[in-house]
């Protein structure tokens, strides 16, 4: 069940279903959590651009973290936030050139795409195959 | 200065030449310049002696020696006149002319400067006649009164560095460790860990880059303790020689540098050690290629910043590394990961000073002195001698070196001359501020590592504070806990927060605000501080409280139930009354800051207990002993 996430922006219709899928698969405080993916709608025509963590090889967030709280999962290839190692300096938030690391001020946690443990839900619900997974 | 000695044989030849140049019959006046004697004017006395010698043109005939501590601080300044060995005490510059004329020139003793035993009334001619010295076995302190600590030649002339030469000239490191192990030497800093076992662990600890550190702990911080100080000031080369031998035995091919950590409050020790290192380097006894044997080792001196906790080994190492002096938990022992996470062998300076003696005497002769049997188990006994700083309410205060296993009674009464002012012995606290207070029933207990620990106290570094019946044991516990409150580094919660709460509870007792529940709370809190604290400071801090609660509970109860301090010490519980000796002189009337005294001239005065603040001024100013306190 180890899947690769592929983004094809040309297929995106800007429906933002991915954001909802992400929020609901990362619940926080009893409700949907902050989304880790954004699909920016472009009008007209009805199109969009999905932006999500690229799990960079030499990731700025990993390099800037002083406590090695961002760790690549060997199985899925996702860079994960080890919350218990995080000291909330938020350097990763500012350092990611794509803006793909966020800070939840209310819950005091860093969040980013974790590839849903190998089964990205955004791709599962994407109606236009802008987000796809491959085995 | 002399050229470096490039072989073991060259050291022997150098010693022979030194001895040949010295005339043992040549008159010499030795002045003790230990801290106690210096405080009593020993340096002025030394100057006066030298001046007198110069004025009389006796420079060739007589030598004036300034030594390290002789130990009998109570009677300083001390002087010994050689070759007769006449012993003089409480010598003042005014006595100098007599010493030169009568003793040095005429060879006669001066009676008025001799020590008279306060009990037996006998007169002591020589040092060994004095009860204080007679019952001691001075192995480590032997040369403190005979050599000039600033002269490496003095040290070499009496056999110094012979042990090192023997080791480098013919012993394998493993043999040295075996020797120390067989001697039964245990850590003199208080831990009592067998030195040979520790050395072997350090030697066998894997050292990736070949670096192992050797540290001498001279951060003596116990109130009233000055054993290490006297050794460092009085015979620095003895410690140095021990450390060089240890470095050879433990081995550090990667970085042959050791440290000696001395508190900065000991400027003279810092000065003497620094000079000793320099002299040893010049003679090729320290540094590269020691005595031409290819063995390298050097020592750096590190000054401590006045934190009691830095005597704790891991805090000391943190301090050397440049961090705050806070201990680290040592579940991986420092012999494996200590200073800079490298294998580190730390011993107290007194432990190091024993090493040359063990090499010289042999393990068997060393182990013959002391208690138990260490031939099979290095924990099996306590061997050799131990220096104690005997202070408090004894007649003879000072530094005392005795074989392990002497009883408290022998130390306090035979050597210490008993209790001052004819009062009664009450307790003795051994081992520094976190030692336990032992009562009269413990007096016949042998003093060694295991007996003291079994009695709820400890050897510690060798502090020994004697208390008489005028001492309030609750107040003693309060005093030591307050000391430790100030010295707790604050890293762990039980020590930092527990000690201040113990202090609050003890203050409640001495101020008469406590109930019996206070004692229960004190006991349970003591358990938390003892069991939960990070380092030995916190773990042992409740000792003064627990031992006084065990042996002197009735005193606590008197404070609580009767609101009375049986020793009449705790101010808040004192009652001041004026007795019939009062002549009505009005002095106390005028001095009382609380205006609690009423009375007229030539009439008996009266203290109003409601107004009295227990300050004791009336008692202090009364010349007729007319103020009673109870």
């Amino acid at each position: 069940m180890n899947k690769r996430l592929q983004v094809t922006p040309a297929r995106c219709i800007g429906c933002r279903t991915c954001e909802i899928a992400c929020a609901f698969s990362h619940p926080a405080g009893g409700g949907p959590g902050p989304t880790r993916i954004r699909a920016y709608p472009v009008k007209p025509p009805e199109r969009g651009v999905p932006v999500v963590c690229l799990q960079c090889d030499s990731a700025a967030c990993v390099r800037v973290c002083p406590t090695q709280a961002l760790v690549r999962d060997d199985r899925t290839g996702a860079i994960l936030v080890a919350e218990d190692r995080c000291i909330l300096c938020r350097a990763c938030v500012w350092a990611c050139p794509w803006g793909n690391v966020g800070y939840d001020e209310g819950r005091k946690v860093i969040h980013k795409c974790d590839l849903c443990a190998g089964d990205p839900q955004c791709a599962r619900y994407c109606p236009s195959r802008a987000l796809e997974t491959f085995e | 200065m002399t050229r470096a000695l490039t072989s073991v044989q060259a050291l022997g030849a150098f010693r022979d030449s030194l001895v040949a140049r010295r005339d043992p019959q040549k008159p010499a006046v030795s002045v003790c310049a230990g801290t106690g004697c210096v405080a009593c004017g020993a340096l002025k006395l030394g100057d006066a002696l030298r001046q007198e010698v110069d004025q009389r043109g006796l420079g060739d005939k007589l030598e004036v020696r300034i030594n390290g501590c002789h130990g009998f601080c109570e009677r300083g300044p001390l002087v010994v006149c050689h070759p007769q060995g006449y012993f003089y005490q409480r010598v003042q510059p005014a006595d100098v002319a007599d010493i030169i004329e009568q003793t040095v020139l005429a060879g006669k003793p001066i009676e008025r400067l001799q020590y008279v035993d306060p009990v037996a009334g006998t007169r002591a001619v020589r040092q060994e006649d004095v009860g204080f010295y007679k019952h001691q076995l001075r192995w480590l302190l032997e040369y403190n009164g005979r050599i000039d600590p600033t002269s490496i030649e003095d040290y070499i002339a009496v056999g110094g560095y012979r042990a090192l030469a023997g080791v480098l000239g013919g012993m394998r490191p493993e043999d040295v460790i075996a020797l120390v192990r067989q001697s039964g030497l245990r850590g003199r800093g208080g831990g009592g860990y067998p030195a040979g076992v520790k050395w072997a662990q350090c030697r066998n600890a894997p050292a990736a880059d070949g670096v192992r550190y050797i540290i001498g702990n001279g951060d003596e911080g116990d109130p009233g303790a000055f054993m290490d100080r006297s050794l460092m000031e009085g015979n620095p080369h003895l410690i140095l020689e021990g450390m060089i031998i240890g470095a050879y035995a433990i081995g550090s091919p990667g970085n042959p540098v050791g440290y000696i950590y001395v508190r900065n409050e000991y400027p003279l020790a810092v000065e003497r050690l620094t000079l000793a290192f320099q002299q040893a380097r010049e003679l090729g006894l320290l540094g590269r290629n020691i005595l031409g044997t290819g063995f390298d080792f050097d020592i750096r001196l590190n000054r401590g910043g006045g934190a009691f906790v830095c005597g704790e080994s891991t805090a000391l190492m943190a301090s050397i590394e440049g961090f705050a002096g806070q201990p680290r938990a040592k579940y991986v022992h420092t012999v494996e990961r200590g200073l800079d996470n490298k294998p580190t062998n730390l011993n107290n300076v007194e432990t190091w000073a024993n090493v040359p003696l063990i090499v010289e005497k042999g393990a068997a002769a060393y182990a013959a002195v002391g208690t138990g049997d260490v031939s099979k188990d290095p924990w099996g006994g306590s061997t050799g001698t131990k220096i104690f700083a005997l202070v408090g309410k004894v007649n003879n205060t000072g530094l005392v070196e005795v074989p392990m296993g002497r009883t408290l009674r022998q130390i306090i009464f035979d050597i210490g001359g008993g209790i001052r002012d004819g009062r009664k012995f009450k307790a003795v606290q051994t081992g520094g501020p976190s030692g336990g207070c032992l009562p009269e029933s413990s007096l016949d207990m042998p003093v060694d590592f295991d007996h003291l620990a079994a009695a709820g106290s400890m050897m510690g570094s060798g502090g020994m504070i004697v208390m008489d019946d005028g001492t309030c044991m609750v107040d003693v516990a309060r005093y030591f806990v307050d000391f430790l409150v100030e010295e707790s580094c604050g890293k762990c919660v039980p020590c930092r927060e527990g000690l201040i709460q113990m202090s609050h509870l003890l203050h409640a007792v001495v101020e008469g605000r406590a109930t019996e529940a206070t004692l229960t709370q004190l006991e349970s809190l003591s358990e938390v501080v003892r069991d939960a604290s990070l380092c030995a400071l916190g773990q042992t801090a409740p000792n003064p409280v627990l031992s006084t609660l065990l042996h002197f509970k009735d005193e606590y109860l008197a404070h609580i139930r009767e609101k009375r301090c049986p020793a009449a010490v705790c101010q808040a519980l004192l009652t001041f009354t004026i007795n019939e000796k009062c002549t009505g002189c009005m002095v106390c009337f005028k001095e009382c800051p609380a205006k609690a005294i009423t009375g007229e001239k030539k009439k008996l005065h009266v203290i109003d207990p409601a107004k009295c603040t227990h300050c004791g001024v009336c008692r202090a100013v009364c010349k007729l002993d007319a103020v009673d306190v109870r």
Partner: protein
Amino acid sequence: MIVVINGRDLHARPGDSLLDLARRTGIDIPTLCHHEGLEEWGGCRLCLVEVGRPGGHGAARVVPACLFPARDGLRVDTDTPRIHRLRAGVLDLLLARCPESDTIQELALQYGVRRTSFVERKNPDKCILCNVCVRACAAVGANAIGTAGRGVLGEIALPFHDDPAACVGCGACALSCPTGAIEMVDTGFTRRIWQRDFERVRCSACGRPTLTRDHAAHLAGRTGLSAESFQVCDRCHREQAGARFLDLLGK
């Protein structure tokens, strides 16, 4: 390597502390000064456990689980009456130090301590001196704060109590403090922390305040990323990323 915790045989990994092993296997041990991302401190003494010698001989020792290495054959008990008593004692003491701290109140209550049995500190703050902030600051690379004073008079402070020069205003100390003892106030483009007002960068795209100017310079120096990359907030970074993709697609 098998360690027996509360009667269960558990497989330990090399380098595991008892706390690592316990937490991984779902055994609850309370801590205050422990932080996975920081060097171990061993000061709060809440994680005390009893360890016996292999084979069960000799009296059990009380040790902090965070610092004690897992060893083969070790027998560990994390919840004996003695451990309960010691933890309750430590929390009782902490409650006297910080009676107003929710964190301490809640933990203490779990050990049956509702009110401290000791004398409460006068003018208490919420600092328990666990040093998490100091270690976090060191990890960030600023080393702006440390312990001043000793023992019960010790406090977390700036050098000489008043020199915030090394502070970059990142706020990691305040956010990682387990009791919320460090005050950090953001007002518009100003952040006040450690007696100093820091200017926050105005996002060049949306104009909202982001990180402090000092933190941006500190990060640029440490990461080798350009200073400009810290002039844009994370949200605008993302939006710009979207726009760039769009450009690549040729609309």
